[in-house]
């Protein structure tokens, strides 16, 4: 910690000399009563995005506005209405922890993603077949912009001609090139990011996608024609206004925009821990190919989930029922 403090204080001093005018410096009190300074600008007089960040919203569930629901996976209840559905087997045993929080949405203007009629049909099918189709569940590389608002932290390491973003989810990363580089030799999951400064906004063009990613768990998707223009602007030293213009003529009738704040993780000892989900997804992906399956009921490639919920001995509510 002390070294970090020293490094950033040096940064603050140099930046201070360079732009003697207005410099917002946040002060954090760490456990050891050391005052850590986090300069709002870098030594080359750019907004300082370095640090660990995380979206704090429901965009990873659905970019569009949605109401809360009782289960990540739903099935028809006793009424035929969609609003009266109940949680389905894969999540039933998780009770109220299996629900999905509501959201006002992050899609700008009219709040609706402008799908072509053909693409709208695919989106609906994606939604209905979420657990079979979503690449996140298989631990595939999440792509951009999805990696930016998944419920995991990510770290920005801001240098002068490269800005690196390291994501906890599957330990993936992207480098934003502020200098001239050749594009990738093949289409990619994470895209090819080329950045530039427009005053105090970092603008990043992302191209060369392979079209295999989704935007969220609601089945919103794109093709390999996807192009992004991301804009990062500091709202305060601890919040970034993150905005993306999304263009994909194969799927959408016009460019559209999402926008959200990204928040700095302010814990003094915050660090990026790994989430190596390749291993986490093995049972899901290959469990049906085991000689002796661990899940008791596979029918071909389909998991038939039998749920056993045990009532713990001494549970006050159930003891009361039994009277």
């Amino acid at each position, binding site marked *: *910690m*002390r*070294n*970090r403090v020293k*490094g*950033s204080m*040096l*940064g603050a001093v*140099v930046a201070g000399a360079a732009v003697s005018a207005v410099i917002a410096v946040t002060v954090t009190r760490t456990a050891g009563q050391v005052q850590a300074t986090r300069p709002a600008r*870098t*030594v*080359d007089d750019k907004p300082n995005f*370095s640090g660990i960040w995380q979206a704090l919203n429901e965009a990873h569930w659905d970019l569009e506005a949605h109401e809360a629901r009782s289960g990540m996976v739903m099935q028809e209840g006793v009424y035929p209405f969609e609003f009266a559905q109940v949680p389905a087997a894969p999540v039933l045993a998780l009770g109220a922890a299996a629900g999905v929080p509501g959201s006002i949405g992050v899609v700008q203007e009219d709040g609706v993603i402008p799908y072509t009629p053909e693409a709208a049909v695919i989106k609906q099918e994606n939604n209905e077949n979420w657990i079979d189709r979503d690449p996140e569940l298989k*631990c*595939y*590389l999440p792509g951009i912009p999805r990696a930016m608002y998944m419920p995991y932290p990510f*770290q*920005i*390491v*801001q*240098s*002068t001609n*490269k*800005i*690196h973003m*390291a994501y906890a989810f*599957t*330990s*993936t*990363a*992207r*480098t934003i*090139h502020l*200098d*001239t*580089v*050749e594009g*990738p*030799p*093949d*289409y*990619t*999951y*994470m895209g090819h990011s080329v950045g530039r400064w427009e005053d105090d906004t970092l603008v990043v063009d992302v191209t060369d996608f392979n079209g*295999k990613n989704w935007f969220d768990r609601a089945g919103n998707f794109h093709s390999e024609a996807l192009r992004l223009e991301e804009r990062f602007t500091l709202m305060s030293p601890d919040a970034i206004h993150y905005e993306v213009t999304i263009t994909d003529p194969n799927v959408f009738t016009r460019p559209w925009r999402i926008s959200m704040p990204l928040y700095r993780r302010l814990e003094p*000892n915050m*660090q*990026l*821990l*790994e989430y*190596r989900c*390749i*291993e986490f997804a*093995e049972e899901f*992906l*290959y469990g049906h*190919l*085991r*000689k*002796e399956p661990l899940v008791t009921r596979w029918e071909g490639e389909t998991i038939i989930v039998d749920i056993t919920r045990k009532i713990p001995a001494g549970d006050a509510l159930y003891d009361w029922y039994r009277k």
Partner: protein
Amino acid sequence: MHDRIVRSLGVTALIVLVLITMTHVTQTGTPAVQAVQAQDAATPRTPWGEPDLQGIWSVELLVPLERPDGTITEFYTEEQVAELDRIRATGSVFGNHVRAERGSEADVAGAYNAVFTSQRPTGRRTGMIIDPPDGKVPPLTAEARARQTEIFEYEAALLQNTVVCRDDLDGCIGGTYESRSPLRDEQPPHYSTRNINRAYGPEDRSLGERCMSGNLPNFRGGFAGIHYRVVQSPGTVTIFYDVGQGQGFNRVIPITDDPHLPAHVRQWWGDSRGRWEGDTLVIDVTNFSPKRDFRGSRENLHVVERWRRTGSETLEVVSTLEDSTVWTRPWTVIQDFARQPEEPNRIYYEPRCHEGNYGLPGLLVGSRAEERAFAEGQGPDPATRCIAGCASPEGRDPLALR
């Protein structure tokens, strides 16, 4: 899309060829490869004053981990290097110049290697290990030897009734040809990170086949070598590892003297804490997961890495490994890296082995099909087949990228 891949492979091949030629010239032209203590003024610095380790770095020369038997010097002479290159280029050490009997299983296994392996010119160092002075990995502790013996006996038992042992091939790992072992239906004596000769489930296959071979420490990087992308900001160093053919990963090193994570929090890539000692970045790595393995060392591994610039285009990483449950003393490995030009951006940022892993499910499906066929009297006993890499010319398990 296909054309693009083919074209880019062509370009890559060309670049590799040019790079190899260039390094070769440099290597033979300038003898000063020895680690010279970098002068402070010579160390490139970031605009905020820290030593600058940034860029794309790769290993350009072939240096074995251990010094070969009979070699007593730390460096070869230029004449020896030239002679070794000549022998390697004509002899059987260049695996991709040797072809097994056409149509044989070994031929097919080798075909993959021939396309994907890269060969580098011989380096002047006779081995990467600089301590102990004999250039060898220190002897194992009695405890580690016993564990290793148990693992080998188990692995050998699963091979003893295969064609590999019947025909006395290298892959038999010293076993004898016998009838099927009852051990085949028991779990390995220790959590396995290598291929064992069965595919009852994903855990029977190596971390490489499961797309999880990109681990620390990484001295070989697999057939395709090692490429790093280092980016720094004040107080943080991040390294993207392009290793193991799409099994790369990203590592973030905070520069801090905060204590390590709680002892019960374990990570595949451990917990890294960096500090600057002069112009050297010293990284202390602990908290490794027991699910990974480096030459028998698992959760008790402690690595101290020392990263420093040795010139405008060179970087040196010296790693000291310590695990008193495995080795009788700590040992130290040196790796020399060469800087790659920025504009071509030749590093593969996408660790997407997993997204294209048809091999693992294919092996599991195939094994289930063989079991069904055998049960119906339609095929050989699957236990007599070797599916642990035994058929490759290099012997068993060449894909274990450790």
